[in-house]
C-alpha cells in the first residue's frame, strides 16, 4: 500500500496502481480520453496531465504509478492551460457538427468539450476528407471523426489479439484502419465489436444497434430473442471448448428440455444472429442439440435449487412443455406439485403433435424423468373437466392444456366422410391408431403443422399428397427447410390457393381451388383476397386434412372466462397469468394460441414464478448450474474467419426417410461441431468491457 495525496485528499492505494484510476476510484475526476481501464495506458491525449510536488513540469496521470508520499495536483493553472491546448489541438481535425453526429449525447469528446470549454477559432481547422467506410458488415468507420486516441487499436491488438486495426498514415494524415485498406472481412476481423465499444467518438460505430432495446439486449440479440433468454453465446463457447456438460448446464439454467429443443426449437434466435450479416447465421439449435446429446449430466445433476417443502399443493392441468416446466420450477420452490395429463403420455404437442421422425419419444420421457426425480407427481389418462373443483384439494391450479382441438373451416362439403382435423390425425398417428386416411390426400394449410400432417401421411403410405395454402410461397409460415424436405419426399405444394369447396356426395372426392392474385389484411385484420379469374381447378382426393390452426379443448362449462379462439382469458398475457377464477392460472398455447415449445417453456416459467409468489414465495426461480467463469477476452487471430461457412446437419435421403418414422436429421457431425461453434462472434464478450467514466458521474460535478 502507498499513501498518496491528490488535491489535498489523502488516499491509501495499492503500490503501482495508476494515479488516474486512483483518483477516479476515489471520486476525484481527472479529464481523460485515450485512457481506458481495460487497455494499457498510452498517455497520448494529454488530457489527464497533473503536477507532482517536487517534480518539474507535468506528467500524465494514466502512466504515473502510485508511490508512497506522492503529492499530486490535478487542477493547477499550468495543467489546465495544457489540457485546454491539447483539446484545442485535438479538435482542429475533428468535424464541428456535434448535432448531426450519431454519437451526440454519448460522445466522450463532446463531454470533455463541455467540461474544459476550449477556446476556439485560434487554430487552423481542417477536414480530413476520408470517405466513411460503410461496406463492412456490422461496423461503420468514419475516420473523419477519429481523434486517434488509439483505444480501438489497443482493444483489437492487446485485449482481443485479433490485430486487424492498426495506425496507418497517408499524405501526412494518420488514421486507423486495416492494412492496405482491406475490408474487415478480408482482414480477418472477428467482428467482436470491441472497437466500437471503446471508441469515445462517433468514429467506429455499430451499423445495426436497436436503440429501442436495452443496451445488453441490443448487443447480444440472440439471447434477447430467445423467449427464455438462454445464454446462447456462453454455451456455444463451451461447446467450442468441448465442455458439453457445462454447456448443457448453461442451457438447463433456463429450460428443462434442452434436448427436445435441440431437435425442434423454432430458433428465433438464429433470425437475430449477428453472424448472418457477415455471411450466414449460426446453427444455434443444432449446437444446442449437440451439447444436449453429449451431456452426461455431471455438471447440473443434483445441483440447483430445491427449497424446503412449503406444504402448499399445486395442480398443473396438462403435461405439455408449459405445464411440465411450471411443475418443475414450482417443485423446486418447495411446493407439492401434481400434473394431470389427459393422454397416456406427457409431453403435450411434443408427444402428440410433432411427429416422431422429428422428435423421438424417448427424449421427452427422459426429460420428464428429471422432473419426476425432482418430486413432481404425474398422473396420466386424467382429464380435468372442472378445474375449479381442484381448488378443494389444491392451493393453486395451472391450466396448461395447450391447443388440442383442430379447426375446421366451414366451407362447402366440410362435413363429409374423409375430412379430418390436424390434431386428431397427428394424435392418432402418434398413438399408432387408425387415422382414417385414404390414398390421395389434400392437406389444407401452410404452417409447420400442415407439413407434419403431409409428411406423416406420406410415411403412413398415402400415394399422392397435395398441400395447399392461401399464402404465397414466400409468406408461408412453415420453415423453408420443412417445405423443401417435404417436396423432396414427393409432396406437391400449392401456395396461393383459395379453398372453394370440398367435392363429393357424403364422401370426399376432391377439392376445388382457385388461384390467389393477391392476399392481404385490412386494418381490422380481416383477410382481403383477390382471386384470379377463370383459374378454377380441381384436385382429386379421398381425404382432406384441415391444418389451419388449433384451439384449446375447453368449453364454458369449465367455469373460466374464454376469449378469442377459445383461449383462456388471463389478466395480462405478458405479466399476469391469473384467470377469471381466483387461484387458477393459465399458461402456454391455451392462453395465446399455437406458438412454439420455447414460448410454452417461458410461459411455464413465468407462471411458476407468479404462482410461487401467490403461495407466499419470492417468485425467484433462477438458478446457477454451470460454473461461473469470465470468458477469455483474448480471442486471437483466425484467418478466413468471416468466410467460414455454416455447417449443416447430416440428413438421410428422401428415399430412405419417407416410408418410416425414424429420426432422419442426425445433427451436426463430430468433426464439424467445433468449427461451427467457433464461428460465433461472441457478441457478449463486449459486455465485459468497462464503461467509460465521464465527469457527469462524479458528485462534485453533479448539478444539484
Amino acid at each position: 500500500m502507498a499513501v498518496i495525496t491528490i488535491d489535498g485528499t489523502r488516499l491509501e492505494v495499492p503500490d503501482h496502481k495508476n494515479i488516474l484510476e486512483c483518483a477516479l476510484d476515489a471520486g476525484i475526476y481527472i479529464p481523460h480520453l485515450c485512457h481506458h481501464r481495460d487497455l494499457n495506458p498510452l498517455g497520448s491525449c494529454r488530457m489527464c496531465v497533473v503536477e507532482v510536488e517536487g517534480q518539474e513540469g507535468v506528467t500524465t496521470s494514466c502512466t504515473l504509478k502510485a508511490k508512497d508520499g506522492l503529492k499530486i495536483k490535478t487542477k493547477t493553472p499550468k495543467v489546465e492551460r495544457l489540457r485546454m491546448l491539447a483539446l484545442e489541438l485535438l479538435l482542429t481535425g475533428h468535424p464541428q457538427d456535434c448535432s448531426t453526429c450519431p454519437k451526440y449525447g454519448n460522445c466522450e469528446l463532446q463531454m470533455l468539450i463541455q467540461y474544459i470549454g476550449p477556446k476556439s477559432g485560434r487554430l487552423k481547422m481542417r477536414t480530413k476528407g476520408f470517405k466513411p467506410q460503410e461496406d463492412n458488415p456490422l461496423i461503420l468507420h468514419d475516420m473523419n471523426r477519429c481523434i486517434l486516441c488509439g483505444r480501438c487499436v489497443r482493444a483489437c491488438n492487446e485485449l482481443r489479439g485479433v490485430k486487424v486495426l492498426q495506425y496507418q498514415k497517408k499524405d501526412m494524415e494518420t488514421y486507423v484502419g486495416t492494412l492496405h485498406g482491406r475490408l474487415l472481412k478480408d482482414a480477418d476481423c472477428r467482428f467482436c465489436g470491441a472497437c466500437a465499444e471503446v471508441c469515445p467518438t462517433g468514429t467506429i460505430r455499430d451499423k445495426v444497434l436497436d436503440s429501442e432495446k436495452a443496451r445488453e439486449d441490443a448487443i447480444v440479440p440472440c439471447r434477447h430473442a430467445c423467449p427464455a433468454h438462454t445464454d446462447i453465446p456462453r454455451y456455444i463457447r463451451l461447446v467450442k471448448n468441448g465442455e458439453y456438460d457445462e454447456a448443457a448446464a448453461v442451457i438447463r439454467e433456463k429450460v428443462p428440455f434442452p434436448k427436445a429443443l435441440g431437435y425442434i426449437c423454432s430458433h428465433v434466435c438464429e433470425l437475430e444472429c449477428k453472424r448472418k450479416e457477415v455471411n450466414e447465421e449460426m446453427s444455434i439449435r443444432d449446437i444446442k442439440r449437440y451439447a444436449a446429446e453429449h451431456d452426461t449430466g455431471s455438471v447440473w445433476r443434483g445441483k440447483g435449487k430445491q427449497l424446503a417443502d412449503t406444504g402448499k399443493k399445486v395442480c398443473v392441468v396438462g403435461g405439455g412443455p408449459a405445464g411440465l416446466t411450471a411443475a418443475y420450477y414450482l417443485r423446486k420452490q418447495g411446493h407439492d406439485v401434481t400434473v394431470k395429463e389427459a393422454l397416456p403420455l406427457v409431453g403435450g404437442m411434443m408427444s402428440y403433435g410433432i411427429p416422431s421422425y422429428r422428435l423421438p419419444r424417448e427424449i421427452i420421457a427422459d426429460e420428464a424423468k428429471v422432473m419426476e426425480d425432482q418430486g413432481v407427481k404425474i398422473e396420466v389418462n386424467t382429464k380435468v373437466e372442472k378445474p375449479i373443483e381442484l381448488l378443494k384439494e389444491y392451493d393453486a391450479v395451472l391450466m396448461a392444456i395447450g391447443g388440442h382441438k383442430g379447426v375446421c373451416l366451414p366451407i362447402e362439403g366440410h362435413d363429409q366422410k374423409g375430412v379430418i382435423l390436424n390434431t386428431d390425425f397427428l394424435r392418432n398417428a402418434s398413438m399408432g391408431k387408425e387415422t382414417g386416411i385414404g390414398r390421395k390426400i389434400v392437406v389444407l394449410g401452410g404452417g409447420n403443422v400442415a407439413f407434419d400432417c403431409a409428411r406423416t401421411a406420406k410415411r403412413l403410405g398415402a400415394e399422392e399428397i397435395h398441400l395447399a395454402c392461401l399464402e404465397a410461397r414466400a409468406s408461408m409460415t412453415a420453415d423453408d427447410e420443412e417445405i423443401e424436405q417435404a417436396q423432396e419426399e414427393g409432396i406437391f405444394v400449392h401456395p396461393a390457393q383459395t379453398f372453394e369447396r370440398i367435392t363429393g356426395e357424403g364422401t370426399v372426392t376432391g377439392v376445388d381451388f382457385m388461384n390467389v392474385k393477391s392476399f392481404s389484411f385490412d386494418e381490422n385484420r380481416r383477410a382481403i383476397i383477390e382471386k384470379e379469374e377463370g383459374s378454377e381447378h380441381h384436385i382429386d382426393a379421398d381425404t382432406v386434412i384441415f391444418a389451419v390452426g388449433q384451439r384449446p379443448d375447453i368449453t364454458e362449462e369449465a367455469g373460466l372466462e374464454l376469449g378469442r379462439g377459445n383461449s383462456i382469458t388471463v389478466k395480462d398475457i405478458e405479466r399476469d397469468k391469473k384467470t377469471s377464477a381466483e387461484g387458477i392460472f393459465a399458461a402456454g398455447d391455451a392462453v395465446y394460441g399455437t406458438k412454439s415449445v420455447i414460448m410454452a417453456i417461458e410461459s411455464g416459467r413465468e407462471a411458476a414464478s407468479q404462482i410461487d409468489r401467490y403461495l407466499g414465495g419470492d417468485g425467484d426461480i433462477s438458478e446457477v448450474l454451470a460454473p461461473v467463469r469470465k470468458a477469455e477476452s483474448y480471442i486471437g487471430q483466425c484467418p478466413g474467419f468471416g468466410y467460414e461457412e455454416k455447417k449443416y446437419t447430416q440428413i438421410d435421403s428422401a428415399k430412405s426417410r419417407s416410408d418410416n418414422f425414424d429420426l432422419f436429421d442426425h445433427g451436426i457431425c463430430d468433426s464439424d461441431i467445433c468449427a461451427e461453434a467457433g464461428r460465433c462472434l461472441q457478441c457478449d464478450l463486449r459486455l465485459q468491457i468497462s464503461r467509460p467514466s465521464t465527469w457527469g458521474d462524479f458528485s462534485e460535478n453533479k448539478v444539484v
Partner: protein
Amino acid sequence: MSGIENAKKMSKQEVLDKIAASGILEYGLHHETLSERIRMAEEEAQEERLELGVVAALNNADTDGVLLEVLKENPEKVTGGIAILGYALGTDKLSLHIPESAAELADLVKDAAEAENVEIVTGLVNKRAEKGSVLMHMITAAGLSDVLEDSFVAGIYVSANGAELKKVACDTKLSDIVDLSEAKAVLAGYRYIRPETAAALTVGEAEIDNGLLRILTEKDCIVAETDEKLTASRKQSCGRCVFCREGLLQLQYMNNEIKEGRGKPDYIDMTKEIGEAMEFSTPCTMGQVSAKIVLSAVELFEKEYELHMKKKTCPAGVCFSAQTIYIDPRLCSGCGDCADVCPKDCIDGKPKYIYMIDDFDCDRCGKCIPECSEEAIVKTSGKVPKLPNKLTKVGKFRKR
C-alpha cells in the same frame, strides 16, 4: 578480433564493467552514460516484469539521417555493438531500427544483422512498445564495438554543409570546420544558432546531435528553410500523440502561411505556445525536438519573420520574388469575371474597363487565371510589362 568476439571471452559482468569504465555516453539527444541507461532499463524491466531487450536506432526526431553513413560504412560495428550489450544483459531480443526513408539500407546490413541475430525493423522506435529495452543510438552501438576493441575515442560526427560525414574531436572549434564569415545563421543539429554564438562553441558544445552543420547565408531564407524542416518532421511523425501530430501540423501551417505572405499577427505567439508545450508533451524525441527549429527561428530571426508577415518581403529573395500575376491590358475585355473570384478582393475595375490586380494584396493564389476567357491573366517570374495605373476603357490603353 572484433568487439563482440572479445566480449564473448569475458564474463557478462566484466563486459558491463568495461562499458562503465570507458565512460561511453549515449550519442545523440540523450546525454547520460550508457551505463546509466542500462541501469534504468533494467529497473524498468524488473518493475513491470518485462523482457529486457536491446534496440539501436537513430533518434526518432532525426529526419536527415546523415548519421546513417556510419551504418553504411561499417554495419558489423553497429550490429556487433547491439550483440555485445545483448550478451552482457543475457537477452537475445535485439533489434536495429532503420528509418522508413532509408528502408533500402536493410539489404545492405542484412548479413551483418543475421550474423548477430539482430532483427531489422523499418520505421520509428515505438517507445511505449519497447519498454524494458535499452534504447541506444546506432552510433553508441558502433562505439561499443570500439570499446570492446579498446579503440574507442569520443568524438562528434559532423557533415559540414553537406560534405562527407567526419568524426571530429569534441574540443574542435566550430570555426575550424566551417567558415562563419558569410553566415547569417548556423543550423547546428536540430536548431539555428547565431554565427557569433557559434564562433565561441566547440563541436562538443554545439549539440550537433544529428550530424547536421550548415551555414545559412544572406541568400538563404530562414522561413523557407524552417518550412522544409517542419514538413519533413510531419512526414516522419507516427502521428499517435496529439502534440506531435497536431502541434507539428499547426506549426508548419503557420510557418507556411508566413512564407506565403499570409501570416497573422498572433502566429509568432502561438508558435511559441505550441512549440514550447511540445517539448515535454510527447514520450519520444520526435515531438520533443522537432519544434526547436521553428522556436529558434522565430526567436533569433524575428525581424525576418516580421518582414514576411507585414511587408511581404523576403530579404533573401527566396519567397514572393518568383511570381507576379498581372492582367494583360491589350487582352482584357472588361468582363469582370476575375474580380468575382478573387478571395483577396484585390482586382480593381468596372465593366468595360481594364481590370487591374493590386500586387501588394495579391497572394498569388492564381484562382483568377482559369476564369479569364481571354487568357489575359498571366503568372510570370520574368519582367512585367507596363500596366495601367488608373481606370482605362478597354482598348484605350496605350504604351507611352
